[in-house]
């Protein structure tokens, strides 16, 4: 099975365009295999970047999610004109892992939004649902959910329990 290897060893070494076009496999030693389920593998790099291998059978949301997250790593200091700090690679990895754990094959890809404090926000606004997940750090993750049709809402810490998020994402895929 042919695979596309997306390698991002360091924001300083290769551009996003080079990364997306890359067909090289990494020679960086793996600090940890964060997800070993083929055909998707995500490996943290001690250089501060990450390597993601995506196979042809991967869910459709993977590539837009990875491209969106990769673009955030390119943002410079003061990217927002209000002193915004650079997005932390470890938060990118945490966001990807959360998506691996909660998304279904046909789940819609999230909007991927940087925060001025160097974090990431994943957002979905569709099917009468508003869902936002904010990463302040890899371990400080908060989600807000609102179903405009039935009025259900929650606002909670997601680090220890992804159940509500998994359920909410499942609702995004269903036409109502």
């Amino acid at each position, binding site marked *: 099975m042919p695979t596309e290897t997306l390698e991002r060893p360091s924001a300083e070494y290769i551009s996003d365009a080079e990364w997306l076009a890359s067909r090289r496999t990494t020679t960086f030693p793996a600090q940890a295999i964060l997800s070993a389920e083929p055909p998707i593998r995500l490996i943290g790099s001690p250089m501060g970047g990450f390597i993601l291998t995506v196979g042809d059978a991967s869910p459709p949301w993977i590539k837009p999610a990875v491209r969106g997250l990769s673009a955030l790593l390119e943002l410079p200091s003061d990217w927002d004109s209000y002193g915004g700090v650079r997005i932390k690679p470890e938060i990118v990895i945490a966001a990807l892992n959360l998506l691996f754990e909660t998304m279904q094959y046909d789940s819609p890809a999230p909007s991927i939004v940087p925060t001025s404090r160097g974090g990431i*926000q994943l957002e979905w606004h*569709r099917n009468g649902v508003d869902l936002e997940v904010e990463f302040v750090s890899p371990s400080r993750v908060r989600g*807000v959910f609102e179903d405009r049709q039935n009025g259900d809402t929650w606002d909670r810490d997601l680090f220890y329990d992804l159940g509500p998020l998994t359920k909410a994402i499942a609702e995004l895929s269903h036409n109502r």
Partner: protein
Amino acid sequence: MAGPSFEDDATIPDEADLWRRIHPSWVIPDQNIGSLRVSSAAFDDSPDGSPLSMLLADIVRETGRSESDVLVGFQDYSLAALKAADARTNGQKVSPTPTKGEPAHVSVAGPKTKSTKRGMARASRWVVQPNHV
């Protein structure tokens, strides 16, 4: 040592427009309303702790500038507006903090909870639309 305090300025009427420059990455599709809108991430304080920076539209115009003028030098940015009332109903104080380079600068100060930021994002409207509409 206590930091600066920001008091709400009652001379800024509730219907006054406050403008916020919006980075392209803060523009998101919202299928629930059928258009692009501003992410709640755009309505946070700065990383150094200073309050949400906005521009008082009336002062911008008094200085002979337009909506487009405040985006000069900010390629691909758009401009969103919020009524002062919307900031206040979300627990914020609207305090003029003019600088040498920007007489229209205001600080929108107060706790920026998720609910607050979402409330301001939902109340905002485009003044200069995103390029990729």
